[in-house]
């Protein structure tokens, strides 16, 4: 069965395997925001920005970069 929990589980698996330095709860929060605002992208983006910046403020020393094998480039 594919539901929201499974959606989160899938993203969490990718996070754990490829982006372990990114906080798991941040991913769940982003997905929740998107699920709550499917028709209001501007609001979704505003809330996500706040959420991510708050997470960074809580742990300023962390470096949420991907694993070395993942090259992060500007998003096409």
């Amino acid at each position, binding site marked *: *069965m*594919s*539901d*929201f929990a499974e*959606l989160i589980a*899938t*993203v969490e*698996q*990718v*996070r754990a395997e*490829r*982006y372990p*330095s*990114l906080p798991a709860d*941040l*991913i769940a929060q*982003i*997905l929740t925001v*998107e*699920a709550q605002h*499917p*028709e209001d*992208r501007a609001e*979704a*983006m505003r809330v*996500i*920005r706040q959420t*991510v*910046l708050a997470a*960074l403020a809580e742990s*300023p020393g962390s*470096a*949420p*970069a*991907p694993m070395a094998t*993942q*090259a*992060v*480039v*500007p*998003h*096409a």
Partner: protein
Amino acid sequence: MLRLRRLEVEDFGPYKGTQEFRFPDGDGVTVVYGENRRGKTSLLNAIRFALLGQVVTRGSRPLQFHKVLNAVARAEGRAGFRATLEFEFDRHAYTLTRRAELRAGATEPLGHEDFRSTLFLQRDGQPVPQVEAERELTRVMPPQIARFFLFDGELLSEYEELLRDRGESDVGPKIAAAIEQILGLPILQHARADLAALAEGAAQEESRAAQRDKNAQTIGSTLENLTAMHGRQREEGDRLQRDMERALARKAELDEVLRKSTLLSSLLGDRDRVDREIADLSARRDEKQAKLQQAMQGAWRGVVARRIAPRHQALTTRRDALQAQLSRHLAAAERARDLHAAAQAGQCPTCAQSMDRAAATRLAEQADAANVGDVAAEQRELLEVQQELDAAARLAAADDGSRVADLFDDLEQIKVELHTRTARQQELADELSEHNESDYRLQRREYDRTAGEIRILGDGLTKTAAEVQRLSEQIVDTRKRLDRVAGAGLAGERQKRETFDALASLFRDAIEVYRDRLRTRVERDATELFLKLTSEPDDAALRINEQYGLTIVHKDGSDIPVRSSGAEQIVALSLMGALQKNAPLRGPLIADSLLMRVDDTHRANLVRALPSMASQVAVLVFEAELRPQNARDLLRERLLAEYAIERVSAKHSTLVPFDGGR
């Protein structure tokens, strides 16, 4: 989970007055029996109208509201209709009422624009503010995925199209996008897009921060420029992509409309051909008429020639006689001249011996006695006769009677053909008058224009993607340089940018993983359902492709091409069932014309499988499509209720509990 409880309709389609349909409690199947034109599709449309504000006809085209009005109610002076739907969603009880009413000032409903639609939504007995009501309904039943819950033969046709599609048309991407919509992929896609935009904003912030660092000013400026250019190119790519999606969607719509207008297209083709034939025949008619007119100018000669034929014959006889007579007389005259000459010479003209006077006198007498006629008179008469004969010959030569007759025959034949074509032209005009020809031509032109636009957009997207890639590489290089020279002051901005970048990358990867898993699950669930439906023991599985198209797999592992219409429908239904099972939204399955094209075995399998396709299923069938006794035997305790749509008149149906045959 969406569960329907009760539907009440008023003056909707064939349902005159107020009529209600109660969905039974519990999981299982409700069967609604109704012969053609009684109102099965209207029942589906009433639910669609309540939830989405739409009523559709064949080809999923919007049906104008004035055509939804019950005709008897209209005759009684009512000019509106209503659907009220009671349902449960996320543990809340909703009552949804949507009405279509005549606009103020409109006295006679002639088109869609003469109506206004109003919505009233209650949640747990409390009114939902109007501004929230549509949003709430979009959450309950997103229009993009409603087709998976309220579907008819049209949707199955689209899926069957998907099975046949080999990438030549837009059907594959269109359906695939709709499927991914129902499977919840947009949540990930939105997250990825939003994070990419935030990453770009963070990159600009970082560039600006770098410009404040004296060691990194130049690189920061370069980075900002590159980032801005990258952003513009990406926005341009997004714009082109949106335009492309809009153009593809429009092309697909037009394609559908034009395909449905095959009859009109054929009529127009016939009409154009007949028009050309008529033009050609008219030109030939005019040409023949001109030739005939010309020929007719000398036709009197032919008449005279025929009238003087006996005279011509007599003249010919006379001429021949005169010529013979003249020849004789000329010969006689020559002989007489010879005799006279011999008599005067006293010498035989034959043996050259001298003759005496008596003999010479006899010769002279013979010469005088010769009948030499009146050669001069005969010659005059012959000349006159010949002149008269020449005149008659000229008249005979000018006798165009047969040519005129040929021309006349040709002209008559052309006129007959012209008459036949003109009659056909009128028939076609009558048939075409029932269709909107100008709309068709406009749509045809728009289709061609849209196809051209898609080609241009495709080129633009390719170029933009290459430019975005080039700028991305430059940005990566520039950032590396910045990292080497920048001070600690940039660490915070860099961390923000890297975090948003990493998050966007994470969601990009997650989309691929989730998509692959969805395909795997859809393939597995479609296979499970398919094996319940198929009657072919050698069928082993279904295999899914990138566009969610399914192929039947033989037990030896080879693909089995889907050829029969029934097999296509079974495969399409298997996909539908799998999508239902994997959708984040759970809801009822209301299906019209589901069983029409399958044979008895598949029909039985399909009916048995219905309860596994959704917890709440309602099928709208006619009795020959699903015999009531078969429904009861196949569904047993999963058959929750049976309704019948009964005819009151051609324009009035009523919905009643069905107990036929019990």
